[in-house]
């Protein structure tokens, strides 16, 4: 029982860590203020859900979600990435909300607010008894791939230019680099990763509804990034661990300590406070950015 609960936490951490890495590529290394991360998470979740209910294998659903996310990413990026950072934040935030409202209202497709139940789980019949262990391995396998992919990118000339864009975009153009092109590419990569995370989320819960895709998901991922260590892929994974453990831990706190208020409700205030403290006193996060590994 305890083991199952820990495993459940472990799986959630893995799913959120993928999201955090994808945000880190955009916001951490390139300073693209994407506040619509949840949109791509939702695309991944709904695409693979709808396909697998129609009988399509998991892996095809996963890939379809990635492709759709890439397309949506391009659609959002084209008009907005030329904008100033603050406009980008608003537009991405709005696009996430628009998408959620579409899922809420297009009942013929998504069952609306009722959500979709009974999402098939990949290879369930094979691993019936140890299914959670299998799923944890699946999540962490994909997390490892995303992590290595992100690290490869960051240590490459491409990643170096992303960091230069973060520091001073105009100055990069002086050296003949089309910064818009770089930003679109990294935005699409980030969107694809978020979609993987969304797919894993949906098939794990076997149930999704639009109210799982509020902007609070995005903010939670931002918190993981800022606290864990902006521009450090391992740091943001630590951030995911911390925030998940904290959010779940507060649920049980009431059994152990006497507080005048429900501690679970205090968690939002506590996380907000933590965020402020980090931004003020440790803006680089728990693990700060590492030097590039030199030659690839």
């Amino acid at each position, binding site marked *: 029982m305890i083991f199952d609960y820990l495993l459940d936490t472990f799986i959630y951490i893995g799913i959120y860590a993928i999201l955090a890495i994808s945000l880190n590529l955009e916001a951490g290394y390139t300073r693209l203020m994407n506040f619509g991360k949840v949109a791509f998470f939702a695309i991944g979740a709904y695409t693979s859900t709808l396909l697998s209910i129609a009988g399509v294998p998991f892996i095809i659903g996963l890939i379809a979600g990635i492709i759709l996310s890439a397309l949506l990413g391009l659609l959002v990026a084209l008009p907005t990435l030329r904008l100033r950072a603050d406009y980008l934040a608003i537009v991405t935030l709005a696009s996430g909300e628009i998408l959620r409202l579409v899922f809420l209202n297009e009942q013929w497709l998504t069952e609306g607010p009722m959500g979709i139940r009974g999402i098939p789980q990949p290879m369930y019949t094979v691993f019936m008894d140890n299914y959670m262990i299998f799923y944890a391995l699946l999540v962490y396998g994909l997390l490892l791939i995303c992590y290595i992919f992100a690290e490869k990118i960051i240590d490459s000339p491409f990643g*170096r230019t992303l960091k230069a864009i973060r520091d001073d975009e105009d100055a990069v153009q002086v050296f003949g680099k089309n910064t818009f092109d770089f930003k679109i590419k990294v935005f699409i990569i980030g969107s694809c990763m978020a979609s993987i995370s969304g797919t894993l989320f949906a098939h794990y819960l076997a149930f999704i509804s639009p109210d799982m895709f509020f902007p609070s998901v995005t903010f939670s991922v931002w918190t993981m990034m800022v606290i864990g260590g902006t521009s450090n892929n391992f740091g943001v994974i630590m951030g995911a661990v911390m925030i998940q453990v904290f959010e779940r831990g507060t649920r049980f706190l009431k059994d152990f300590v006497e507080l005048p208020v429900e501690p679970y409700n205090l968690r939002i205030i506590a996380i907000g406070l933590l965020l402020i403290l980090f931004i003020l006193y440790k803006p680089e996060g728990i693990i700060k950015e590492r030097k590039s590994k030199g030659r690839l």
Partner: protein
Amino acid sequence: MILQVQDVEKSFGGIKALDGVSLSVGENTIAGLIGPNGSGKTTLINVISGFLRQDKGRICFEGKDISSLLPFEIARLGMCRTFQLTRIFRGLTVLENMLVSSNMQNEGLCQLFFNRKKMIMQEKADELAAGEILEFLEIDHLKYEYANALSGGQQKLLSLGMALMADPGMVLLDEPVAGVNPTLANKIFEKVMLEKEKRTFLVVEHNIDILMDFCDMIYVMNKGKIVASGTPGEIQDNETVIDIYLGG
């Protein structure tokens, strides 16, 4: 003439920052652009390098009209610039700053995953070139330091190094020695002199004296217009110039 600016005008609201500026710079020369504060020097550099679009007029670089190109497109034709307030990539090391500045455009993602050999070869070549330039500028001992750990003068040297790393036909230097001590300022200009056989320079400077020693041709701007031009000797004796600088 490698660079030709013809009747360029640029207004900000009611202020005419550039009021019909024409100038031309010959290949493998150092041209100076001087003038008092607010005379339009930096605006002119911004227009030439594509960061601002002129209202009127034409700019040709190596015989090609670049008036409507974007900054990165102009850069790819072989024109690089520096900024008045040194703009380097502070979160990167000195070497990485140099590598970003390479004109080889080695950043392809397909290459990263499917043609690593070619990418690594190019990186090695770039690192070698960067090392040579850093040595030339005498800051190679700082190769692995973060750029924001450098002093102001070292940062100026680095930004010159980055411009050289791009191996452009022409470099626009916007106040390369502002806030730098006179010894280092002379050194910077000596390095520029040594590069003259390979490329052309257009240097914006506030300090008239230092340009006299190093430039082949000087343009003087005041209130958005070129008010005088000539060799340093001619400029020294030009009454308008003396008026602007001494008479006000």
